[in-house]
């Protein structure tokens, strides 16, 4: 904690060494956040580059009321959303009540990070963003609607579609593993 505080103070003074240390401390975790929203490593690095510039510019306003990790993550997510905003075209509204509500429990422990990312990258852009925001970042559909300037219903329908697609991918993957095992 003291180390983190010292880093913050150094970054406020625009000390290059402190900035580098802060970057090294958080960049790997933030790369995973960024790559979930983008389609390629290059795009993810562009988001990280832009996000860290903002972080160093605005760190003087960081009051310490929240965790530094979540503060940085919020900036990275917002930067990723800015990159994606133009790609978020809306699917027609889907009545979520008509979707097949299967049992939700799944087991992802057997999957590597790359496998999970591949599945997420297969989602359409809008679905991918809303899936990340709802399922992994933990935002509500109302908050997502405010963030992306869409209706709560659209957020729900987009997420429902994402969930359906991922479930199909997981089921397909399980069937392939079963057949290979045979």
């Amino acid at each position: 904690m003291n180390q983190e505080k010292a880093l913050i103070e150094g970054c406020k003074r625009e000390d290059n060494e402190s900035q580098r240390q802060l970057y090294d401390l958080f960049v790997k975790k933030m790369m995973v956040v960024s790559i979930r929203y983008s389609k390629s490593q290059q795009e993810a690095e562009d988001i990280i580059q832009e996000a860290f510039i903002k972080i160093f510019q605005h760190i003087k306003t960081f009051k310490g009321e929240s965790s530094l990790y979540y503060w940085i993550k919020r900036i990275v997510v917002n930067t990723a959303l800015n990159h994606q905003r133009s790609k978020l075209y809306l699917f027609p509204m889907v009545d979520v009540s008509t979707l097949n509500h299967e049992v939700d429990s799944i087991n992802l422990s057997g999957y590597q990070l790359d496998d999970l990312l591949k599945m997420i990258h297969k989602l359409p852009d809008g679905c991918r963003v809303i899936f990340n925001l709802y399922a992994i970042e933990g935002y509500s559909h109302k908050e997502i609607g405010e963030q992306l300037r869409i209706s709560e219903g659209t957020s729900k329908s987009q997420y429902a579609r994402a969930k359906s697609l991922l479930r199909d991918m997981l089921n397909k993957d399980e069937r392939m593993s079963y057949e290979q095992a045979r």
Partner: protein
Amino acid sequence: MNKQDRSAFENAWQEAFEGAEMAPSDQLWGKIELDLTKQANSGYKKRILFFKLMAAASVLFAAVIGGYTVLNNSDHLKVESREGHSITSHDATNTSDVDQLYAENTEKQDKAEVADHTHSATYAKESENVTRIAKSDSKSGDKISQTVAKAKANNMLIREDKMNDNTAAFHTVKNDNMTQHISQSKKGEEGSISDPNLVEKLNVAEAELGELLAMDMQYVPRLTELHKRKKTDRDLWVGIGLAMGQNSTSSAGGEPMAFENLNSDFNNVQRDQINLSEERSGRVVSAGLAVGKQVARRWIVESGLSYIKRSTLAESNLAMASPQGVQAANNVALAESTGQVYLTDVYQLRNTYNSISVPLQAGYLLIDRQIGVTLKAGLANDILLFNRVEDTSGNLEAVTVNAGADSQYNTYLISGLLTSEFSYLLGQHYYLALTPQLRKSINSVTKDEAGEANKPIIFTVGFKLNYLFK
């Protein structure tokens, strides 16, 4: 988000990415560092642009003033023909010609006599004019050319007086005293020596032959007075000055770091109870000595030493106990160190910075006559001595904090300077100057940089009395 809405599906995905890491490429930090450097440079560029704009504005302002002054004088200098002959007279605003001819003819003269000489003179043109005169009239030209040649040989001034319609009198003068007066009435007559005093009277001249003999200069006391003060007069000078003005802080917000670090349980004073506003603009007074030297025809260098008192105002409800009593406070760390921090009603707090400044400026002499305009720019090293914090109502004791480790302000400041100087020569050795000046801190006044750095802008207008060493 309502956690009850989350199912096992969402939780599974969230847990799968918990703590996940991925290394970026090695070049990524280099790109970020480059962007940061570019941003820092753009900040410097903005500062340079600011000074450039100020310099341009000063030059424009001085040029307008100078142009108006010069134009005003030039109205008196155009020579017109009395009898309708238009003389291709040299407009006397062509000061380079005036200076050249004046220098040729007055080099050997006593400066005191020149200073007392209140009449302008007609100057002989170059030999081509003499030739033209000689050729234009076969009879009178010989006499005229002889006279002119003789005068030129003796570095004399030649003036032409028109006596009447048909005569032209050529007067030669040596210094202010006429030694020979050769007049010629009508063509063909011999010239004769007449009263030298006639030469003292300056008239508008018109060449009988219709040719330009010399550049005419009508009697313009102001212009001749202006010519008294030559560029070489400004060799070395010292001066004293006094200035007053205003300063505006450039801090855009943010709390002092000590304020953020206040132990919220300290003496039952909660952080959110403290009301300490940003410093805002206040008065500036400075007094000092200046010393300068002319290093080239139009360039000067000036330095000096001055004492500056700069005050800012703020609101505070913080006070601290000391052996002297309950004191006003704007520095929470200092207040904490006394052991007793109190909250009071909100009061107005004045913070006065007392500094010594050592400026160094280069200047350009835009106009160098009796009225002078100089544009100067440079840097100043400001050394903070102490700052004094006081309650303007007088209810709380004032506190003086010496510069150094205990102060929240930097001891050494570098400031950029931009000065316009409008001067008026008084006699031979003294001149009075009006000096509007803009001063901008390059580094921050405060040691802590939570929020924006505090780099005040100071504008003052002052008067200087300078003594010229000759």
